[in-house]
Every structure is written in C-alpha cells, then in structure tokens.
C-alpha cells in the first residue's frame, strides 16, 4: 500500500506541479526525501520561506506550477510576501504546512505559533484545510485543482496526528 508521502507526491505530480521549494520540518522529512527522488519535480530548498515564495512566483510566471512545503511558524515570517506578492499579483500557491504545536507536540514553544496559525490564515483570507487523519488527504487532489483554478495561496495544515507522531 502506498505511504502517505507517496500519495501526496502522486497528487502533486498528477496536478502538474513541477517546481517545489522547501524549508524543512521533522514532520515533513519523508515528503522532502520523496521530492528529491521525483524526476518530474525540480526541488529547490530555500533558506527562508519568503525567499521560497519569491522563487515560486517566478516559476509560476515562467510557466511551471509551484508549491511550497514549510512549517506553520513560517506564516509569521511570510505575511508581507503572501499579501504583497502572491495575493496582490494573484498567483496560485499550494502551501503544504506542518502544523506544529498541536496534539502530540513535545516542544512547548511550538504551541505558541500553533494558537495563532488559523487566526492569521483567516485574517489573510487564505483558504485553509486541516488534515488530522490520513484519510483527510484524499481531498488533496481537489485542493490542488482549486488552488490553480482560483489563483490564490491555499494552506494545507498537517498535524502530528496526521503524520502519526514524529
């Protein structure tokens, strides 16, 4: 049976995503490793998430469908970029986000950004989906299609329960 990482990657590939930037998180390590071995996706690690959103904006304008993979703490550092680049120029950007600080979290500090994550996304009018159980990922294909249909950044929050721990 395909792993959850395989299923996520397959949805990316089937939706013609060819350019993915990542800033790592422990929960996302498996997906990032799969990306590296995916022939149809150019994986470009970025040093900060706003840099990654710039790369994705360029890739989109160059004709490639982009995506970013990052931790929810990144919402704190990318608000200006999301608003004045991705949203202002109306660009699509699926954001696969590890939702740290939820049930099962061992690091107390992660809860601090977790309590703000959905409120910030709501304030930014970013469509947000929360994957808590692995069957929730069956919506990923539709979420990606929605993102490229409406040219918006879209958040997919994936918590510790979804990843079955760390």
């Amino acid at each position, binding site marked *: 049976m395909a792993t959850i990482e395989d299923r996520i990657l397959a949805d990316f590939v089937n939706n013609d995503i060819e350019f993915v930037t990542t800033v790592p998180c422990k929960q996302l390590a498996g997906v990032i490793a799969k990306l590296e071995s995916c022939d149809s996706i*150019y994986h470009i*690690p970025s*040093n900060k998430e706003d840099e990654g959103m710039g790369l994705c904006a*360029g*890739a*989109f*304008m*160059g004709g490639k469908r982009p995506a970013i993979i990052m931790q929810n703490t990144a919402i704190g550092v990318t608000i200006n970029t999301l608003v004045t*680049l991705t949203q202002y*120029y109306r660009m699509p950007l699926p954001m696969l986000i590890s939702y740290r600080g939820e049930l099962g979290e061992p690091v107390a500090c992660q809860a601090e950004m977790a309590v703000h994550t959905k409120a910030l996304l709501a304030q930014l009018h970013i469509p947000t989906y929360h994957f808590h159980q692995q069957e929730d990922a069956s919506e990923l294909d539709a979420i990606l299609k929605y993102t490229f249909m409406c040219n918006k950044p879209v958040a997919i929050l994936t918590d510790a329960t979804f990843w079955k721990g760390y």
Partner: protein
Amino acid sequence: MIRSEVIKQLIPVISNHFVVCNIGLPSQELHMLDDQPTNFYMLGTMGLASSIGLGLALAQKQKIIAIDGDGSVLTNFGTLPTIANNVADNFILLIIDNGSYGSTGDQPTYAGQKTSLAAVASACGCENVIECQAEEAAQTVQQALDSNQMTIIVCNCESGNIKVPVIEMDPVVIRDRFMKKLEQRNA
C-alpha cells in the same frame, strides 16, 4: 553616476530582455524610462527580485535579468547560496550597489561600509561574480548576456535619487502582460 543614470544607460542592452526590477525607485525609474511588457515591476516585498528572477530562469529558457539593490540583497541574504547552488545560465543578477537604502531616504547600508557583496556572493559559491563601476554597467551586462553563463554583477554607483512618478498600473496587468510576452517568446 547615480542609480537612475545607470538604469538609463542600461536601457539599450536590457530593453529586449525580460527584467525583474526591484521595489521602489528602481522599478519606478525603469517604468518611466522604458515601460514595456517584458518588465516585471515589484510593487511590494522588498528583497525578492533575485528570488523571482531565479524562479523564472529555472522555469523556462529566456534570459532573465534581475535588477536588485544592495539593501534588498542584504534583506534577503539567503538568496545568494540558493542562486549559487541552483545554476541557471539564463540568469543575470545585477546588484546596483549605491551603499544606501535609496527609496527610503538614502540611509547607509552595510554594503557601503565594511561588507562586500561581491565577496559574499563568491563565498556563497557563485561562480561568475563581476564587480564594475557605474560607467561600465551596460557593457558588463552585455558581456554577461553574451557569455550564456549565470552571472552576478555588483555595480558600484553613487547614492542619490531623482523624482519619479509612482507606478499606477494594476499588479495583475503587470503580471499578465509579462507572462503573455514570455510565453510568446518561448513558443
């Protein structure tokens, strides 16, 4: 020579190419001097011209020139290792280094003091790093275009600004006409 004069001098060399231009006065100057669909003006998000430019260069074949500033590169310093490690030979990063945050009132940057952006770019692993003076900008960019190699140019000039109108064009129009022209050129 100040930045607006450098940009003016560059027009004949860059006019036929796709340009991603830094936020604030650089975009306003380019817009005033030579507005056309091949220019992507950044209206927000300081620091990301080089990242947008690299993403564009990696995604398609046309040459991309990102016009950046020393202050903006300092803001997004992480861009230099990413550029160095993801070589796109159709990408030129032109850093117009006037040693100041020009659009906000010419406050001095560290690049105008002890920090050498050319040395930083080299230390990050960028292979073709060229430092030039303002008067040599057009010739240096032309040589970089002819070389078909990814090139980082640090062009030193004086700080100072001219009065330029703000860009009133809608961002979606800027993006749409740029994408259509790029798609057409790649067809």
